[in-house]
């Protein structure tokens, strides 16, 4: 990761520095300005690889790198990007006039404008994990303070070696007065390492170095020792029954003997089973209680609803509940009380259900009746429409008949029957008034 950070250096000439220097330093300086802390690491940070702790608003995200803005700039078309993202987008464009990556409006790099200060504040407020969190730094800092944290305070960031002739770096926490980059060889395992890594090697990694067990005085390699500590026969341990009252403690070898005779230790399995069962029952009781609460709530809801809707029913339910509430008092245990309450609630629920179904049936009857009436109406309307259609047909044919006849044969044959059906058929050349009379007589016939 360090290599990447330094690669990014050319793209980040001065990432967020003007802002960081302006207001972050005073806020963080009380952390301690020790002599080592003043040595700056001065590695430009790549803010894009950070892990964000706070969730951030989608509107604060650069559309190009999908990270919260880093040194945002704004184009004339009001689109905002990170400065680096925009300059990289511009370098991939060949044309002389650069175009906005979002809307292709023409602009050039010189025309960028600053974004409102509150946006900078919002992105600086975002809390991030220190980039060294993978090697042990647990700090979470505001992004605006990150450069200062890494440069001055993070004990895991690499700082230059104090020796003048050494160009290597060392984590700040290991920094001393002299160069720790000389090679040393572990006396025990012959592994070559840098002097700065010796501590960690001795603590964990060395495969040969031995240390003695404080209890049995035998020596083991470092890696085997922790394993041994869990099994050493001379270590003093407590009786298995200690958590149910046995105060005895002795060496591991003698413990088996004690536990054979210890009443508490032999009771342990039975006690454990009992406590397990008690836990289960407690959980079941909790569940029941919660269910009961829910039922009670819904029933009282319904009661209030019904009280508004139908007074007689509300009276009945009130009468039904009142004996129960007086009855509930004598119960000696909470479970009995709960059970009886549950029973009464169930009865009430049944009653409510039956009344609901009654109402339902009534409503559906009403709907059916209404439907029937509507259907009848509809049939009636249909009949009326049919009769009107017939009248219209008759009128049309009558009109056709009265037209001057280019093809008299066809018209007379087509209109013949309807003309004949009329009680007083008009003469072929009749004008409009007789036709009106005809239609009137047709309507009365229907």
């Amino acid at each position: 990761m360090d290599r990447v950070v330094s690669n990014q250096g050319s793209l980040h000439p001065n990432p967020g520095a003007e802002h960081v220097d302006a207001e972050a330093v005073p806020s963080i300086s009380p952390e301690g300005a020790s002599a080592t802390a003043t040595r700056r690491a001065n590695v430009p940070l790549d803010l894009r690889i950070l892990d964000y702790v706070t969730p951030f608003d989608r509107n604060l995200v650069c559309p190009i790198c999908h990270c919260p803005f880093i040194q945002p700039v704004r184009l004339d078309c009001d689109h905002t990007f990170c400065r680096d993202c925009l300059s990289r987008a511009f370098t991939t464009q060949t044309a002389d006039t650069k175009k906005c990556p979002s809307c292709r409006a023409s602009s050039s790099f010189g025309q960028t404008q600053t974004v409102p200060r509150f946006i900078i504040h919002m992105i600086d407020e975002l809390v991030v994990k220190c980039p060294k969190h993978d090697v042990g730094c647990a700090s979470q800092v505001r992004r605006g303070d990150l450069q200062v944290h890494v440069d001055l305070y993070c004990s895991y960031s690499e700082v230059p070696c104090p020796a003048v002739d050494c160009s290597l770096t060392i984590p700040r926490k290991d920094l001393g007065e002299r160069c720790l980059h000389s090679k040393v060889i572990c006396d025990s395992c012959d592994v070559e390492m840098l002097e700065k890594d010796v501590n960690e090697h001795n603590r964990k990694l060395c495969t040969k170095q031995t240390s003695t067990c404080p209890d049995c005085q035998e020596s083991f390699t470092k890696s085997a020792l922790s394993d041994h500590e869990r099994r050493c026969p001379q270590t003093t341990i407590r009786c298995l029954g200690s958590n149910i009252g046995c105060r005895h403690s002795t060496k591991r070898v003698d413990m088996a003997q004690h536990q054979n005779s210890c009443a508490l230790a032999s009771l342990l399995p039975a006690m454990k089973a009992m406590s397990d069962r008690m836990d289960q029952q407690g959980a079941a009781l909790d569940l029941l209680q919660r269910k009961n609460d829910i039922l009670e709530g819904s029933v009282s809801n319904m009661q209030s609803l019904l009280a508004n809707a139908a007074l007689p029913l509300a009276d009945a339910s009130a009468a039904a509940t009142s004996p129960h509430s007086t009855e509930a008092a004598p119960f000696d245990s909470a479970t009995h009380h709960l059970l009886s309450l549950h029973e009464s609630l169930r009865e009430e629920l049944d009653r409510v259900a039956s009344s609901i179904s009654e109402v339902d049936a009534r409503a559906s009857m009403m709907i059916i009746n209404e439907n029937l009436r509507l259907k009848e109406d509809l049939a009636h309307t249909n009949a009326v429409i049919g009769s009107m259609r017939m009248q219209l047909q008759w009128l049309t044919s009558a009109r056709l008949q009265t037209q001057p006849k280019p093809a008299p044969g066809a018209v007379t044959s087509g209109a013949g029957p309807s003309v004949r059906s009329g009680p007083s058929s008009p003469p072929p050349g009749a004008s409009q008034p007789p036709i009106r009379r005809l239609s009137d007589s047709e309507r009365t016939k229907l």
Partner: protein
Amino acid sequence: MGSSGGGKRIARELGECTNDPPEGIRVQLVDDADVYRWDITMDGPEQSPYAGGHFKLQLRLPTEYPFKPPTINFATKIYHPNVSNDDKGSMCLGMLRSDQWKPPNKIVAVLNMVRNILIEPNIDDAVETGVAEQYKNARDEFVKTAREWTAKYASGK
């Protein structure tokens, strides 16, 4: 992690695509160590002649992503005016063109566009002009052939 910013963005987009995939689209990496090559499985949209088919696509991201557009290839043969009928199955239209690509475009948008192209081919931008002619003038035949190809090449898993 050559350009860490781009890599981070790709990883983020991959997370979005795998956790909340667009309808009828499944996404995975060809090789877990390489975020620049994606394997896409796209179900033929119901309202298209490709319904019932499972089409494999390969999506490649250039190292300059998001400044250069991704490329899409149909690994499964498909009878479509906008997909070349050769072993590459390449498709190049709309936002996939480098002159029309915009860095803010996301891969999800690309995948949705491909799916929309399956539903409604873009005739004015066709690579297979014969298929495009058929789509325009003899839609029934086009639908028939597309169905046949779907059954033949894309019905398997």
